């Protein structure tokens, strides 16, 4: 079951990259980047998952050698990563908006004043 998560995670990453490479709409490019981020986030959470584990919320008195819980570090990492990807999405959407104002198009093939 956890294997399905890994497969999905890498599939999402590849799908995102495919979107960025093939789609000519600036907004779709941004969506592709977000899909890549979702893939990585799914990968991180899956890495920390132990089947049957409880939530990793304990005080020191409750913690025993036999307590079985999922790895809390990847969850912390995911939160950080989600916040960062939200920032990147916001920034790229702002850029897309300004580009549309200046160039009057959303097509990546026409946004190429810098080349050569």
């Amino acid at each position, binding site marked *: 079951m956890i294997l399905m998560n890994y497969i999905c995670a890498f599939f999402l*990453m590849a799908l995102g*990259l495919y979107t*960025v*490479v*093939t*789609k*000519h709409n*600036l907004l779709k*490019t941004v969506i592709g*980047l977000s899909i*890549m*981020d979702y893939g*990585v986030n799914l*990968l*991180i959470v899956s*890495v920390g998952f132990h089947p049957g584990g409880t939530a990793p919320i304990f005080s020191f008195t409750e913690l025993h050698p036999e307590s079985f819980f999922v*790895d809390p*570090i*990847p969850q912390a*990492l995911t939160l*950080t*990563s989600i916040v*960062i990807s939200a*920032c*990147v999405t916001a*920034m*790229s959407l702002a*850029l*897309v908006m*300004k*580009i549309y104002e*200046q*160039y009057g198009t959303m097509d*990546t*093939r026409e*946004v*190429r*004043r*810098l*080349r*050569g």
Partner: protein
Amino acid sequence: MNWLSYQHFPIYAIMVLFLGAFLVVLLGKNRVVRAALALLSVSASLALLVALVPRVMLGGEIIAYWMGGRGMSGGYAMGIALEVDALSLFFALLVAVAVFVACLYSIQYMEHDDNVSQYYTLFLLLAGGVLGLVLSGDLFNMFVMVEILTFAAVALTAFRNTVTGALEAAFKYLVVGSIGSVCILAGTIMLYAQTHTLSLAQLSLLLPGNLNNATKLAFALLFVGFGTKAFLVPFHPLAADAHGAAPAPISVLISGVLTKSGIYGIIRLVYFLFQNMDLGAIRFLLVVVGSLSMFVCVTMALAQHDFKRLLAFHSISQIGYVLTAVGLATTLGVSSGLYHAMNHTIFKGLLFLAAGAVLHETGTTDLNQLGGLAKRMPRTTALFLIGAASISGIPPFNGFASKWLIYQAAYQKAVESGHIGYLLVTIVALVTSTLTLASFIKVSQSVFFGRLPERFEKVKEAPFGMRLAMGVFALLCVATGLLPQAVVKTLTLPAAQAVENVGRYIAAALGTEMPAIRTVTAVEIGVWNPINWLLLLGVSLLSVTLVALLGKYDRVSENEGAVRAGGKYDLFFGGEKSVHSQVGGGDLFWGFKHNWRHYFSFMHDLHSGVVNDYALWAALALALAIVFSQIVL
């Protein structure tokens, strides 16, 4: 631990920058206040790092600082660490110096822009991000810092969003930069899944020798990720776009600081985490990618007709030198690579600031429109020429010293390993250096010499604050060029030895006995002296002058005299007298470009400017790296 004790200095150095970033946006209504705040935080950061030099660089101490006092137990790293060895401090000093000078320059350069307090906030975030990256001892923290610096760099690229192409450049950088960041994060998490630690020291202990397919994949992901940050070859168009649009002090940071963070990441990856530099294939990878970056970017630079875009391609070309030297895996190679990294920050910073001064005074960086500025901006011209001489490797400036060391290291490696490929690398490096000189002759000719166009008759010299910042870099160019032995001894050799002595890095963080990993203490410094080469250059210059003068006073026999009238056939001084014609940005080396026209037009078409193509290159690089790592590791 006393709060003033030196163990705290690294975290303070990062904190003052981030604190400054917040304070500037809160209190930055007044232009004096915001400049003072920014300058104060960058100089405090620089001072804190310089204070560590005696202990870390000369004393060889490694500072392992655990955040919140949560260290390690049972040989396992529990907390988040800052770990400062000579390599980290070397890069941190580079960052701090470049940031300080760029901040000094910004004060007058950004005077006429809107939202300057936001500019300083992003500027300090970028500086803090890079400093955090190089001082961190934790792989995930490195990722967070990479994201902070990418984010700030993208925002700063688009800061002057009315400039042609600024938004476009920022968007492309964001897209490919994000692909790189996702690679770094995925690589980090793959390593975590296999080893259950994020501490660099712990990973360096666990990974070597215990590779499986997942960690091999992680190597490829991290390599490509840091390669994006260093703008190595398939990613170089982004650097050119970003530099062309960003304000000059930001170009200094992108070329002098951001690319260094990528190089730092690659060094940590191959020398520390995986320790696979003894594999021929990994050396091959680094040297080939480095040589490709060197050559492709220098030829791209020759075809440019925008001042800053041209400098940007040269910047990546010089990064290629650094990577190649680091890939040689000898103490001399690493030491010379780091020396060149330092020099690159200094002379490239100087050149970008000079380009910024030209833009500030004339309003354009188009080589076809500029000309003759030496008459109006003599001081900027002199400073630019120092930078140009440095990057082209002319003694006694610093570029000569480090490039010489790199040639020597590559040649020595060729002799030692008996591998013909390293000789080829030396040749590529020499050719690149020649092409660099050629392209800087073109720039000086079409910007500073030649005829002054009428519209620039009233151009003034750059203001004092900007000249001061350039002066600092120029002084450093001369100082590091004239005292190479001192630089090698105090800065680059300790850093190179830190790279070779991985065991000490692990032991310092984990407090365990020093693991039995190779420790190298050999001192190898190149045998060369820039003064001799300067004398040689002087002697050849003198002989050329002498011959030329002799040619002028050549005795002319009676019957030849008629033919020679007008000096048309004089030795060395002959030639047609012609009216002055402006040589445009593109055509000084038209013969060369004509002969190579197929190559140039191919490269021009390849750099199409469509973001999908650049993403495709990234995907291709990633695919190649994954296949490569699965096969050879």
